[in-house]
């Protein structure tokens, strides 16, 4: 049987799947349940310096092709959340702490507190498309990305991941900036900025009007982004966007992802999705003669017969 373990910036994961930030990861108990269901690691909800309620309801729109959400980064603040991180760590789960901040200093401060709480790695969310002053607004230019990564890098010893936005004309440029700024890995992609309108109500459905599109709809975009980033940087890439089967995960891995994250598919397929993806990958590796995941990373770049 194939070995599904992967090495990611020195972290050893039992399999390449992780729970994506923002999905079932605001409380310790839930994160532990998801890890038990099969995820190789969990990424926490994006947490900031102080508590946030997030946007008013409606904050999700269910679509045939995925999900549109404008949760608005609700979170209990890093002080409170540190206890949740510790509780997850006590259960032996690999946990990556996602952080947000309104400025590079605030972000670096939250990152430092997240690391202090025991997170195995810290993921900078530079890419939420629907919360003012957080996310995209500090991650939309290469200059910002570099500066922000550098500030956090100085305060964090554990691996630092930069999660990038696809709402840009060149995600490679953002990835290069993250690498220059000292990020140890790049995570791509966050959601695409979208909107759904109710013609009957003649208004946008989300209370925040704009939201982030996730799920199967964005997979071809995410795969393309990972493929481009793999060509642009030396640091590992973590692929996310629309993964719900092993085959979807393999697209990302062959595009260049060392590991993958799964969010929306937890809605459609439940937390069992992690095990199901791993089983698929393992069957594929046996059939196509791969003994370790690493042999497949970026494989779609080297062949043209």
């Amino acid at each position, binding site marked *: 049987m194939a070995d599904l373990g992967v090495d990611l910036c020195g972290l050893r994961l039992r399999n390449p799947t992780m729970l994506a930030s923002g999905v079932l990861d*605001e409380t310790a108990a839930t994160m532990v349940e998801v890890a038990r269901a099969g995820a190789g690691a969990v990424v926490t909800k994006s947490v900031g310096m102080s*508590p946030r309620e997030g946007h008013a309801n409606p904050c*999700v729109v269910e679509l045939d092709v995925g999900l549109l959400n404008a*949760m608005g980064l609700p*979170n209990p603040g890093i002080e409170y959340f540190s206890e949740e991180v510790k509780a997850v760590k006590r259960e032996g789960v690999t946990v990556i702490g996602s952080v947000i901040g309104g400025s590079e200093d605030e972000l670096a401060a939250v990152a430092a507190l997240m690391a202090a709480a025991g997170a195995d790695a810290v993921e900078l969310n530079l890419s939420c498309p629907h919360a003012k002053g957080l996310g995209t607004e500090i991650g939309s230019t290469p200059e910002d990305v570099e500066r922000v990564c550098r500030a956090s890098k100085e305060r964090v010893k554990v691996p630092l991941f930069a999660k990038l936005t696809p709402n840009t004309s060149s995600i490679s440029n953002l990835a290069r900036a993250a690498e220059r700024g000292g990020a140890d890995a790049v995570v791509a992609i966050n959601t695409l900025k979208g909107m759904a309108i109710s013609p009957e109500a003649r208004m946008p*459905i989300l209370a925040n009007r704009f939201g982030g599109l996730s799920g199967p709809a964005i997979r071809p975009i995410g795969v393309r982004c990972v493929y481009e980033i793999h060509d642009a940087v030396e640091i590992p890439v973590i692929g996310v966007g629309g993964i719900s089967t092993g085959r979807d995960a393999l697209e990302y891995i062959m595009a260049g992802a060392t590991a993958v994250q799964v969010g929306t598919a937890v809605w459609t397929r439940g937390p069992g999705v992690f095990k199901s993806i791993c089983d698929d990958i393992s069957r594929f590796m046996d059939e196509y003669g791969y003994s370790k995941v690493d042999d497949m990373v970026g494989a779609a770049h080297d062949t043209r017969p």
Partner: protein
Amino acid sequence: MLRVAEHRDETPWTKTMRFKDAVDARPGQFVMVWVPGVDEFPMSISYVGDRFGITYQIVGDGTKALSKAAEGDIVGIRGPFGRGFSITGKRILVVAGGAGIAPTAPLVDAATKKGVAVRLVLGAKSSAELVFESRCAAAGAEVHVSTDDGSKGQKGFATGLASSLIEKERYDSVYACGPERMITAMADICRKRGLPMQASVERIMKCGIGVCDSCALDGKHVCTDGPVFDLEQLEKFSELGKTRLDRTGRKTGI
């Protein structure tokens, strides 16, 4: 978006809204109700099948805005979501406190239709706030009323009345919906007596579909694993009756 077919007062603070459409749901399941431009919130389905409906208390901005909708107006509905009640046994006791009658009334309908003997304890603050008493009686349930102020039926809480019924008669299963302390009290009684029980619980709901973690209860989710849980699960909850998450995700006392 669905059109309101009927909108009637049950009490000064409780209304029932019915739609032209049918919903294929089990008693205990809920929908997310969108009042455009105001809010979206969870409501149990109080009438399943044709012309489905909800029954709600006016408590804040969202329900106040909903209460103003006229027949023919449109309301957004997502769902049905969650797991409903499962009806087991020949004789059951249903305990409903306040708006807790909303999901239990269709349970009474379904159970009596199946030939199950139903005793319903209907609790409210006062006689003016009793909902669905005649509906449940007409369905064939034996209805026992309790009011906090004694204006109708037995004075006191529904749990008191329920526990005296349990002492008198053997039930195959107990169903509860209402304030959380009523649920924990009923759970205590049922555990002691070895009675199977199911209860519907409430938590803040944002997504309603199991992604946002805002309705988390000890790692389970009210929107997908619930809102109806059985006694075995209820007993495992360390947070039940003690804490709930606020909108930021912090545990706060109930």
